């Protein structure tokens, strides 16, 4: 058993691929039993999870705070909208997503260069400026970017072979909402495998080293600026993919979708789920997607008026946030993991938990900061 475990923890790539495949199976199972609206909700969860995943890499692994990830999503979304203006647009969806990622990546490099020179609150301030400025750009170039009303996004027709394949595999007709959800979750799984691999590689270890002690890292020969810029760039690329998914899910890219609120929401998802953990990012995204609707539903069932029920959602959301910070400061995943560790240590098994053992650069304080790509079940 112990041997199997240590073997499992050593074959990083294989482990990530197996987990990704398992995740995809869960996605198929869940989406096939979900209705159209659920599918769209799951798609929103996927794009929030994608962006939160990127942010959790940046904040959890490299210790940089970004309040501007909403703006980076906007860049991905607007790129998508510009490439998909009507049904006749011939750009294949995969290319559109890659273009969105590319555009965001370019912005990420530029912002990353500035960000690498800043720390803590100054960095937060700089990225905050980005979050405030980007929606303004869309308003200023009204003719091209649609101003306040934004740009419509028209999803091209589903390719015939996808329809055939989906019908062959599931025996169900593939609806548009389900198609969007599949695209979003597939993007999420692929991105998370890449992110998980990266964080387990030399690059990821450098990021952690820079986070834990900049001076020590520099003495060890790590180029601080380069490590910071690369972390920001990777994180931005994930946000770009998230923006593209948001655009095709919401069918709109408008400034009001990318307010400062979105950036803060992403940070909330990361903190709720657990800093530095991709699983945590998914859990955080799930909470943000489903909590408001569930709470509003409770309110209506309890006989509150529509307005009161609508006001209940932000209230409960705030309460959950406060409770998590007070009771589980390392987030949901962090707390679960600590509980698991405590139980293992107390039990007869002498081996330390597998995740830590596999990670030579893990900080000795070993919080929730190790990263694994778990499945993608909602």
């Amino acid at each position, binding site marked *: 058993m112990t041997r199997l475990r240590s073997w499992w923890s050593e074959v990083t790539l294989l482990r990530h691929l197996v987990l990704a495949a398992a995740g995809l199976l869960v996605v198929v199972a869940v989406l096939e039993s979900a209705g159209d*609206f659920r599918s*769209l909700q799951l798609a*929103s969860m996927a794009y929030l999870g994608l962006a939160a995943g990127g942010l959790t890499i940046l904040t959890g692994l490299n210790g940089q705070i970004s309040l501007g990830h909403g703006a980076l999503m906007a860049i991905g979304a607007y790129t998508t909208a510009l490439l998909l203006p009507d049904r006749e647009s011939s750009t294949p969806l995969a290319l559109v997503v890659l273009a969105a990622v590319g555009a965001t990546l370019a912005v990420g490099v530029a912002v990353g260069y500035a960000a690498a020179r800043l720390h803590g609150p100054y960095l937060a301030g700089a990225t905050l400026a980005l979050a405030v400025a980007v929606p303004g750009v869309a308003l200023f170039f009204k003719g091209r970017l649609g101003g*306040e009303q934004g740009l419509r996004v028209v999803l091209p027709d589903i390719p015939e072979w996808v329809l055939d394949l989906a*019908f062959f595999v599931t025996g169900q007709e593939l609806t548009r909402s389900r198609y969007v959800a599949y695209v979003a979750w597939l993007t999420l799984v692929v991105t998370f495998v890449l992110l998980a691999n990266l964080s387990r590689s030399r690059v990821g270890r450098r990021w952690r080293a820079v986070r834990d002690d900049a001076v020590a890292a520099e003495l060890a020969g790590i180029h601080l600026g380069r490590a910071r810029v690369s972390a920001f760039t990777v994180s931005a690329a994930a946000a770009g993919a998230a923006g593209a998914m948001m655009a095709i899910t919401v069918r709109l890219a408008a400034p009001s*979708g990318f307010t400062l609120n979105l950036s803060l929401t992403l940070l909330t998802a990361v903190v709720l789920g657990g800093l530095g953990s991709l699983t945590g990012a998914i859990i955080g995204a799930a909470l943000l997607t489903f909590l408001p609707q569930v709470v509003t539903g409770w309110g209506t069932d309890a006989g509150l008026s*529509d*307005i009161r029920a609508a006001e209940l959602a932000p209230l409960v959301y705030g309460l959950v946030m406060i409770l998590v910070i007070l009771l589980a400061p390392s987030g949901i995943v962090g707390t679960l993991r600590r509980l698991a560790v405590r139980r293992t240590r107390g039990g007869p098994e002498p081996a330390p938990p597998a995740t830590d053992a596999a990670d030579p650069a893990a900080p000795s304080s070993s919080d929730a900061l190790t990263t694994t790509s778990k499945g993608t079940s909602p």
Partner: protein
Amino acid sequence: MKRRHTRPAPLAGVLATLALLAACGAGDDRSDEDGGGGVSEVGVSEESVTVGAHFPLTGVAAPGYSEIPTGAQAYFDYVNAQGGVHGRQIEYLVKDDGYNPTNTNTVTSELVLQDEIFAMVGGLGTPTHSAVVDFLNEEGVPDLFVSSGSLQWGDDVEDKPYTFGWQPDYEIEGKIIGQYVAENLPDAKVGLFLQDDDFGEDAEKGVRQYLEDQVVGVERYTSGNTDVGPQIAGLQASGADLVLSFNTPSYTALSQLVSLKLGYDPQWFYSNVGSDPDLVGSLLSEFSEGAVEGSASSLDGVLTTEYIPGIDQAEDPWVQLWQKVWDEHGTEGELTNYRVYGMSHAYAFVQALQAAGEELTRDGLVEALEEVGQDLDGPQLAPFRFTADSHMGISGLRVVEIKDGGAADPLTPVLVSDIGDAPIEEDTSGQADDAPPEGGVPE
């Protein structure tokens, strides 16, 4: 290193699987069509018909606008208490979108795909509703009486066959205001204060048809940016002594406060959207943190327009009906102009349901509205323009002056027009003088 070698293996596997699947040619089976409708329509049963709407119940746009669905709900309850329409009770679902188009999209998907509404009734806002109008038309959901005066709800029936406007569009409002000013205030130097989206654009198009030579300054604001100092100062500098404002209520209050501060005192002419005296009064005292004592009389002397009777006309038979409905079925609070607005479009929806007949279908509803739309009675001062070629809403309005603590004093008869260069004429339909039927439910 290792990564580079292992990567192609799963990829190749996927490709092989795909090839295999393609070879099987399972695609032939995928041909089942919908049953073609007929049996029962979505959201309709023998006992009930479910409709929905999106409104800003929270957030900056909530004051005033969040009252509209409470009015509509009260009127639907009133109709339900009298047995509903063709024996069906109307169930009305309202979702909060916080005036954010992204949220509008989510809640509309929820209404259409999960709650399975039969029709959308009165969804509010130009940027918000334009995010979902294509989706509703693709799904074939009747999208009636959008609470916004943008032209796009009714000017292209082929593109949006299921969408119907309700209030007079901003272009004819602009035209009628423009003509009034050109005829009655020919020496005025006109400044325009516009919201920087379809609202301001459509209105400017209308105004300029009549006032091209009189306009001395144009200023635009972006909804959400609460600093209008530069715009008002710009109007002042241009020497405008009459300001035509096409803005939402919050910006009426803001523009009043800023011009107080700057000592700028032109004649103000607010379009219907931004001129509710009660709401603006309360916003004035809120925004100025009590420095300005806001009340319903704060807008006295201001010019505006109206297309349905408001609560200041207590002796109007329609307002009496709304008061009765609100007393019997209203929730907390008084009857307000926003609730009257909600009841008015709820009334029109009940008329549409009745016209569609016992066998209620989505397409049937649309056809019925196109057929009888122009002849519908109701609180609106001028008739609707609904035909098979146009889904534009109410065709006209009258210019009024606000005085004596928020009462509207008519300055013109009801004037009707249409988009483009259609002439402005006095309304001859007598719509303004009709009264509701005995029981308060359309027959």
